[in-house]
């Protein structure tokens, strides 16, 4: 990874999950910068700011109060300024319908939160590296779908 850093954002209402997420990246020793938001409204407020730094990858929890992950996804995909962000759905459950629905709405990656920290680290590093590959190897982002 020879970039400056990779900008990651996570929107998740669960404190523990945010902790696991930031811990995982700090242990991964990748050149990343992680921002977290406590719900969908906070996230969208940030993204809609004029000078907001757009993340390379955005992790969305599905079950959030005020504004769900799906609602965020739809808003983001409708906004040309944000539509280039790689979207990762980061959820407790993984029903085939949920997965297909979010993919159809424009999500690129669907992660079922693992119940093991090691696995979590592995999954998150995979996401970043695959996203990087799509970025550097000029692969067609429209066809970027990944389920972990």
């Amino acid at each position, binding site marked *: 990874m020879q970039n400056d850093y990779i900008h990651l954002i996570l929107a998740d209402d669960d404190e*523990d999950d945010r902790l696991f997420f930031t811990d995982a990246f700090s242990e991964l020793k990748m050149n990343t910068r992680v921002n977290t938001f406590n719900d969908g409204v906070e996230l969208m407020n940030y993204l809609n700011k004029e000078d907001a730094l757009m993340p390379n990858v955005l992790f969305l929890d599905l079950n959030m109060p005020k504004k769900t992950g799906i609602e965020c996804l739809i808003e983001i995909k409708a906004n040309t300024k944000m539509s280039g962000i790689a979207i990762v759905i980061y959820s407790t459950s993984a029903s085939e319908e949920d997965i297909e629905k979010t993919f159809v709405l424009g999500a690129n990656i669907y992660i079922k939160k693992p*119940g093991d920290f090691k696995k979590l680290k592995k999954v998150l590093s995979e996401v970043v590296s695959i996203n990087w590959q799509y970025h550097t190897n000029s692969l067609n982002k429209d066809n970027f779908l990944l389920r972990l």
Partner: protein
Amino acid sequence: MRTKNLFKSVLFLRIVLLFGLFIILLIGGFTYQHISNLTDSTKIVISTYDVNVELEHINSYLSDAESGHRKYTLTKDALYLVPYIDARENINNSILKLKKLTIENAIQQKNLAVLNNLIDKLFTNFSKTDVLVKNDEINTESFKSRLFEEKIILDSIRRQVKEITDLENKLLDDRQKDYQSDLRFTPLFFYLILLVTLVIIIIAFSKINTNLIKIKAQNDQLLIFKESTNQSEIIGKHGNWVWHIDSNIFTYSDNLYRLLGEEPQSFEANFDNFLKFVHPEDVDRLSKELDNMIEVEELPFVSYRIVQKDGTIKHLKAYAKAFYSTDGQKRLLGITSNITDEIENFLELEERNLELERNNKELSAFNYAASHDLQEPLRKIQTFVSRLEEKEADKFSDSGHQYLERIKSASARMRALIDDLLQFSRTNKPDKEFVIADLNELFENAKQDVAITILEKKAQIKSDNLPKAKVIAFQMQQLFLNLLSNSLKYSKKETYPVINMNYSKVKATDEPHLLKATKDQYHKITFTDNGIGFDQKYAEKIFDLFNRLHNKQEYSGTGIGLSICKKIIENHKGFIFAKGEINAGSVFTIYLPFS
């Protein structure tokens, strides 16, 4: 059919009547002709008689004339010439009479002309003789010849009279003969005609009689039918009405009155009186339908409410259709039935259905939320345990490690339970999307999900080619996955698992299992394994939720997998059956409706 026969006999009777009338007219005609014939005959007899009398007169006048003439000749006394002159006049009168009497007969006219000539000749001769007498040339040759000629003429006259008499008599005789023969045949003819008439009348009577018997039988039946209709109307809670459109007369059946809560035939049957009972909110609609009905000649099912005098509200449904009676009168025949019970039952059923639906939704929402929300804390426990294990492992004692392991396995089991429950509640959700899917692909996908286990256990999976079918794709894949994992999980420890998936298209009637089949043809897919099997007596129980045949130390099942299979198959309107033999293996057979 019967009415048709009756119509036929009516026609027959009409024909018989016409025929009878015709015969009576015929007889009248004949009688008139006979009587007039008889009158004619009498006239002819009288005329013949008159002719003969006149001829006799002529004869006697001639004799008078001759004797008077002779006396004159002898006496030369003019006194004797008087009867001679009178005779001449009388003869002329008689001849005129005769001419009149025989005016229709040309021969007699001719004969009369001849007779008249001869008489003229005779009288001319008389005159010539008179001249000789005056001159006293009696006993001269010419006088003698005159006498002789007189004798010849007289003979001719007598012959001629006789001829006329004979002819007249002969004519009378012929007429008499004709008349006689007529008179002989007439009674026979009359008799025959009467006989035929009698036969026809007897046939007609017997026909009328049988018809009467039939009509009576039909009347009896009609009476029974009417009574049974009455009864069935009471029991079936409906009434009928007829609207004679041309005369605008209504007839209501007794029970129609009862439906309105009134005594039978207690008010005049008409539209206005009926409308008094109709619920105010439904009057307009019903009137409109009825107006429309006259045009289209049919009243589609229309339901409305009525209010009885005691305030009871009833739901009625009416239907009517136009029909034409045999005399071409247009009528509307309507049936009105009381559907209050049906409507109440329907409403109750609907209410219950809604309640059931609500319950189901709540249950499924609860199930989903419970399993989903239970997952989150559990996952965190697991994650924290994994962090403990990773970061703090060296600080634990041996028993600490053991406890950690126990926590791990307990939470793993809980996770499996929750996952399966979630899966089960998902298969319970309604509004699934049926799509045409290649079952082979779904099976391959399922196989990939257990690919690691297949490798680990060195399992062998043989499968037939599957068709495409209209299914809920996610669920079918889940079904294949559950059956595969089931076979892999309950495999014998000492042998490699062998799983055979076979397919065939079958007719429902050929499958003894399929007692409740709703379709004719089914896809039949069987999964056969060589695993530990089960006792056949549990063959139905294994599909029950949380039902396990083995303890969890031996085999790590949750008792949900096969329930999910059953649920999925039910969602597809199919069937699933299990057959097992301990230590020999099990066979799962699924039937999917062939569409």
